[in-house]
């Protein structure tokens, strides 16, 4: 009886192995995934939103003591940003005037496709969104939030769904620019929503709090999208370049609606 069970198990295992090999070779796994996502997306989408609301509620409850302090910091930051915005508006007006004077065309904006998060992969820093190849989504398209914060890029596009590789994924690197320092580097994911900028020239004076934006150099993202701010600078004498750990602007909290850049 025991021998019969072992033999049966062996035959079943061989069959399953054959099916898996066939699925991998034919690329049928995408179809299977798409079918399951279609079947589960409404439940997953609702559960994602519920998780978001619950976690926001509990976070508020546990951090009530810090709220006043955080509010004061945010108010100060808000005032500073308003000042910068006013300055930027003036520069924009001046820029438009000069463009008109030189007869240059207005810069084209991005072609965007809104998408909704329905799930997250716990193992590989990937999220699932409800737009896929049928909506014109292709691999490597950049994904951002409505606040122009970089989320990542499309790593796999199924018929109705797509996987987004987060910028903190260890397999993901792209060019970035550090504002006000005329310094460029390469952002590399460190997992767990952490990222580090590498290959920054040693002579550049990078400081904690410096804002990091995307650069058009790598061709992955358009210029000027928000990535994060410098959390820690590592300028070792034995290294040829300096590194900077980032505090990413990307957070899973409140991450519901995203924008996929189809063209830039």
């Amino acid at each position, binding site marked *: 009886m025991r021998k019969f069970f072992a033999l049966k*198990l062996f035959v079943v*295992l061989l069959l*399953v*192995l054959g099916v*898996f*090999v066939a*699925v*991998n070779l034919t690329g049928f*796994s995408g179809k*299977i*995934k798409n079918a*399951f996502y279609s079947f*589960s997306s409404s*439940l*997953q*989408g609702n*559960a*994602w939103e*519920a*998780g*978001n609301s*619950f*976690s926001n509620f509990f976070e508020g409850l546990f951090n009530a003591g810090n709220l006043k302090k955080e509010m004061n910091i945010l108010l100060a930051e808000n005032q500073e940003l308003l000042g910068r915005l006013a300055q930027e508006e003036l520069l924009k007006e001046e820029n438009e005037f000069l463009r008109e004077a030189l007869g240059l065309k207005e810069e084209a904006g991005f072609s965007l496709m809104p998408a909704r998060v*329905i*799930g*997250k*992969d*716990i*193992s*590989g820093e*990937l999220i*699932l969104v409800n737009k896929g190849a049928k909506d014109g989504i292709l691999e490597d398209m950049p994904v951002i939030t409505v606040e122009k914060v970089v989320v990542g890029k499309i*790593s*796999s596009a199924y018929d109705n769904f797509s*996987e987004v590789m987060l910028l903190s994924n260890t397999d993901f690197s792209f060019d970035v620019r550090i504002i006000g320092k005329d310094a460029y580097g390469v952002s590399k994911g460190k997992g*767990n*929503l952490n990222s580090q900028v590498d290959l920054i020239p040693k002579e550049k004076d990078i400081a904690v709090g410096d804002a990091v934006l995307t650069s058009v150099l790598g061709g992955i993202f358009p210029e000027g999208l928000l990535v994060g701010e410098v959390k820690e600078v590592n300028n070792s004498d034995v290294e040829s370049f300096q590194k900077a750990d980032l505090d990413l602007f990307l957070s*899973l*909290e409140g991450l519901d609606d995203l924008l996929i850049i189809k063209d830039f």
Partner: protein
Amino acid sequence: MIKKVILTLSLIYLLILLQTSFLPHFSFWGITPNYILILVVFITLFEKSGKLGIWAAFAGGLLNDIFYSSVFFGFYSAIFFLIWFFIHLFLRRYVQVPNIKKI
């Protein structure tokens, strides 16, 4: 037995949906545990018949392959099967599990 298998598979499906949508918001130091794996280990350790565990491992591995991106399709299935194999053939035979009511 069939009832138990259907119940287990439904539970695993529900758990994978929660694990990919609701539970990532409640991670521990940024890490969300693989609850399916914990459930499969638990079932394999405490089941009576010895067959429910392999169904749980197969379904758990397959759903992990579907809902998580991996090196290749079947990666998690292989991992889950090896875990079941190890517990079923070695751990259950040579290690005394606590005397609780078996499933």
